Structures are given as structure tokens and as C-alpha cells.
């Protein structure tokens, strides 16, 4: 098998529970040693996809291929994948060592080999010396580490993780994110990681698949997803975005000439290969709040797109300040959000003052077409 051949290949998966469709054609490939995150809000189908890979659910249609072999109809115990469950699922009647040995005993690994691998796995998750501890005496973070050790001890081709950090507190979660990423690199094992936390996904992943309503909206590296969102859902879910609707006007090739909310005309460059609907059609466009600059005077640097706006509200958040702008006379209730560092706008008493909102032309993302 060539090194860049996909290790795990899914698709196109369809699955319904009763009459409600959960997956509507999910296709995905995971390469060897890749950290792939399935990201999306609850009920988007990410966990069902994971359970299909593990073998706990079978798809209505579509196949699962692992190492080039079709495993769709195999039972969970026949597949070379292990899962780290959200609530750990450690065996309470066994001590830590026997929990870790469980999978290896099932795989008929020789006992002296098991004896070697238990402390190895424990030191990987920084729990050396915990062999004889009872599961009920562990803290949540320790249980999660044991669950991880148990899953990697059998050296599966793919490790599946179902929101494994969901039950931990914020500080521990941040630590574990980096540790997980380091562990994954060290093992060179492919991880498929399910989460609804976009920050977690950005921190750890090689690639992210953004799920919404049973479909994958976009697959890409964290950078691609953030810098080149393809749909308003992705733009909004990852990082947040101001979403506008815009009409396509006739313009130069390689550029988009748009009329935003029937009011502001802008001219922005297209990404290579990006296709724009015909003039007269409408598209959604997105601008990230942190890319909107606010100026009080007409002192804008050259090359920025400029919008007349009114300062409506500002919220001081400590490390940043969130500014609410009214940018459209025809839609006075529409609020555009801008982020400013520091407290420059926090102390501003007079609201309703005219300001200028400015963005770089290539910070305007052209998203999906509108019907």
C-alpha cells in the first residue's frame, strides 16, 4: 500500500433513525497518521459517523473501507479501530492495569508482551505507577487518561475519540488538547476526533470536516477553514462572521463586483478557481468581526473598502472590545460586529456617532449562492 493511500475511506454514507435522516451523504478520507476532526453542532451527524466507523451502527447505504478492505459489514470486534468514549467507559470491576490489558487479551497478545505494554501505555498518558489503582479512586482527568491508554495499548490503525474532553473543566481541557496532539504525533496514529468545540478543533487538527445537518459543509486544514470558508455556516461556526447578502454586478474577470445589502458597492478579488454566479444572481458574503476596523475620522489607509457607519453599542470584554455598527440605511436594525483590541472604544459615551468601517478587499469571503 502506498504511503499516501487513504487509511480510512467513507462514503457516501446515508443513515436514518426512524423517519429522520441523520446522515445525507457523508464522504471522508483519512490518511495515515492524520488528525482528522469532525466538527459540528449537536445533532449534525458527527457522532453517528464515528459510531459507523467503530461498527456500532450500520449505514443505510455507503461503505466504510479500512486499509483498503471493506469493513462495512464487520462487527466492532473485527475492526482494527478503538474508541475513547465520552464518559470513559472504564470497567469498574477491574483495576487500571486490567482495564488496559483487556483489549490485548482479547487480541491474544502474549502475557509477557502485555506486561511490557501496560507501563508503556501508562507512561504515554503520564500515569506511570497507576497499575493497581481502582478505577473508582481516579479523578475525571485520570479516568480519561486511562481510557486513552486502554485504547492505544492495542495499537489500532485508527483511534476514534468521541468528545473525550467534554466532561473536563476548561483548564484541564486546554492541557489535554496539547497533550493529545503531542501523543498523536508521537504515535503516528490516525485520530478521528469528534467535537463541537471549534477552538479544540483548530488547536489539534491536521484537517477539519465541518458537519451541518447530516452533511459535510467543508473539509480542510484549520487555516483553510478559517481563511477560506465556503459557506455561511462554516464562516459563522468557525470564528464567527458578519453575513450579508450581495448581488453580483458585471465586473472584471478574476474579481467580484458586488452590491452588499443593496447599498454598498465593493470590488473584491476572487480566489484562484473560485467561480462566481452570473451577474444579477445573489450570494452570501461574510466578513470576520476581527477584520473590521473602525475609524472615527476619514483617515483610512489606501486600499481599504470603506463603509459609512454609525456606532451603536460597545461591549468591553477585557482583552477585546466588541463594537456594534449600523452600516445600512435601508436595514437600520442590522448590526455589524467589529472587534477592537484593548479598551479604546469601551469608554466611549456618545453612541450614535458617525464612524467609518473598513475592511481589506480579500477579507470579504464569497460564500454560497442564494436562491
Amino acid at each position, binding site marked *: 500500500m502506498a504511503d499516501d493511500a487513504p487509511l480510512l475511506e467513507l462514503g457516501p454514507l446515508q443513515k436514518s433513525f426512524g423517519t429522520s435522516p441523520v446522515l445525507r451523504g457523508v464522504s471522508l478520507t483519512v490518511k495515515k497518521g492524520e488528525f482528522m476532526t469532525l466538527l459540528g453542532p449537536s445533532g449534525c451527524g458527527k457522532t453517528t459517523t464515528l459510531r459507523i466507523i*467503530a*461498527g*456500532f451502527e450500520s449505514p443505510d447505504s455507503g461503505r466504510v473501507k479500512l486499509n483498503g478492505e471493506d469493513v462495512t459489514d464487520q*462487527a*466492532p*470486534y473485527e475492526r482494527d*479501530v*478503538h*474508541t475513547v*468514549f465520552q*464518559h470513559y*467507559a*472504564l*470497567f*469498574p*470491576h477491574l483495576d487500571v492495569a486490567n482495564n488496559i490489558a*483487556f*483489549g490485548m487479551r*482479547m*487480541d491474544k497478545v502474549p502475557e509477557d508482551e502485555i506486561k511490557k505494554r501496560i507501563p508503556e501505555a501508562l507512561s504515554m498518558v503520564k500515569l506511570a505507577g497507576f497499575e493497581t489503582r481502582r478505577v*473508582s479512586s481516579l479523578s475525571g482527568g485520570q479516568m480519561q487518561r486511562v481510557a486513552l491508554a*486502554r*485504547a492505544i495499548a*492495542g495499537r489500532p490503525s485508527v483511534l476514534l475519540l468521541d468528545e473525550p474532553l467534554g466532561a473536563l473543566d476548561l483548564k484541564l481541557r486546554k492541557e489535554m488538547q496539547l497533550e493529545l496532539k503531542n501523543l498523536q504525533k508521537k504515535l503516528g496514529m490516525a485520530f478521528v476526533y469528534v467535537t463541537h468545540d471549534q477552538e479544540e478543533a483548530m488547536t489539534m487538527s491536521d484537517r477539519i470536516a465541518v458537519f451541518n445537518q447530516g452533511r459535510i459543509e467543508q473539509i480542510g486544514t484549520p487555516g483553510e477553514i478559517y481563511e477560506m470558508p465556503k459557506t455561511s455556516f462554516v464562516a459563522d461556526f468557525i470564528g464567527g462572521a458578519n453575513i450579508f447578502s450581495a448581488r453580483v454586478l458585471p465586473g472584471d474577470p478574476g474579481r467580484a463586483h458586488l452590491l452588499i445589502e443593496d447599498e454598498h458597492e465593493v470590488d473584491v478579488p476572487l480566489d484562484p478557481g473560485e467561480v462566481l454566479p452570473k451577474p444579477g444572481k445573489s450570494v452570501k458574503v461574510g466578513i470576520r468581526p476581527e477584520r473590521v476596523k473602525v475609524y472615527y475620522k476619514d483617515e483610512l489607509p489606501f486600499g481599504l473598502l470603506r463603509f459609512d457607519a454609525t456606532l451603536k453599542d460597545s461591549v468591553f470584554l477585557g482583552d477585546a472590545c466588541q463594537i456594534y455598527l449600523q452600516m445600512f440605511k435601508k436595514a437600520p436594525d442590522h448590526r455589524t460586529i467589529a472587534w477592537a483590541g484593548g479598551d479604546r472604544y469601551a469608554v466611549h459615551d456618545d453612541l450614535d456617532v458617525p464612524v467609518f468601517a473598513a475592511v481589506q478587499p480579500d477579507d470579504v469571503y464569497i460564500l454560497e449562492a442564494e436562491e
Partner: protein
Amino acid sequence: MKKGKVLSGYIAALYGFLYIPLIVMFVFSFNDARRNVVWRGFTLKWYRVLFNDAELMGAMLSSLELAAAAALLSAGLGLLASYAMVRHKPFTGRRGYAALLNVPLMMPEVALGVGLLSFLVRAGFELDFGALACAHALICLPYTVAAIKARLKSIGDANLEDAAMDLGATEWQAFCKVTFPLAMPAIVSGSLLAFTVSFEDFVTSFFLAPIGVVTMPIKIYSMMKFGVTPEINALSVCLLGATLLLVGLNAWLASRAGDSPLA
């Protein structure tokens, strides 16, 4: 304040109503008199009489054997029934099946006894110890199912069987290595409950007991025909003590099961 007094008075009356007869029974089991009305001084002779009564000890043995058989049988069947209801994909009539298992709890025992008797006789079964044990297992089944089903459900909710299968265990291995050991406290506690239910059952035994098999409650009933003697008091005290022991054991096991949280 007044309301509190009324309430505590009511509670005292309630507990008195429940427990004074037991206390009287306990005290009079040590009464040195043939008749049960007047206190004549302390003695242990009724306990001596009791343990030297061969017939009574025979009845005790029958009841113990019967209760043990019924407990084992109902625990085994209860485990299978619970596993089917909890672990398997919803099957047609599952809710009806679950409700049906609870029917012996609600059905008048007399009806059950008459029904079983006429069924067994018509179907040509011999009314022997085995038939009686099966009948007892039937009335014990709701108790074992209730205990075991709840435990299996929490094992499943914690994804423990999923985890076992994910780690390479077949369904049977997962059952042997994970489900069964974890369900054991519930199986034992359900069996103890079943044991008690069977041991003190009168009606079903009365209808179905084969000739020559006399269970404890039936023996007590026949002794009562000649009035409540101190011997019966002593016997009842022994039974009460044994029951309390079992209930205590059961509570201890249940609390131990609670100690090993599954989630």
C-alpha cells in the same frame, strides 16, 4: 407547633400498630406458660422444643430447599429476560413482554394457584417438588427482573459492553467478562429477595404442594389450629430474625453495588 405534635403522635401510633404485635410476640416467646395470655416468667424452653420438633425441622428444610431452588431458577430466567429487554434491539411486543413479566405481582395468588393447579393436572404433569419450585420461581420472577434489569440498563448506558466489543470482545465474551460480573450484585440481591418471597409464600404452596411436602408457612398454619402457642411465637421470632438478616444483607449488597459507579 401543634401541628407537629399531632403529626408525631400519628407517626407513633402508626409504628405502634406495626411493631407492637411483633414485640408482644417476641416477649411471649420467652413466657414460661402453656397459654399465651399471662406472663409467668422467663424461659428458653420453647426454643428447645422448637429445635427438637422433627416435623417442624423437616418443614424448615423443605422451605429452605424450595426457596433456594426458586431463587436460583428465577435469577437465571430473570437474567435472560432482562438481557433480552435491555440489550437487544426493540422487538415486536417488547413492552407487552415487559408488562407480562410483572403480572404475577398483581394477579391474586389464589387465582394463580387455582390456575396452575388445574393446568398442571390437565396437562398431565406430576405435582412434585419440581413443579412447586417452578411455580415459586414464577411468583419470584418480577423481583429478580426488576433488580437485574435496572443494573443491566446502567451498564449499557455507560457504554461498557460497547467498550468491550470495541476492544475486540465478541458479544459472548463481553457478557462473560463485563456484563455478568458487573450484574452480579444485582443478581445476588434479586435472588435474596426471591428467596424471601418464596420462603414465606403460603397460597401457592397450599395449592400445589405434593403429598408429603410441608413448607414452613403451611406447618405454622396447621399448628395454629390449636391456638397460638409460645412455640409458634418462638418460631416466628426465628423467622423474623432470619428475614431481617436477609434484608440487611440485601441492603448491604445494594449499597456496595452503588459504590462502584458505572458512569
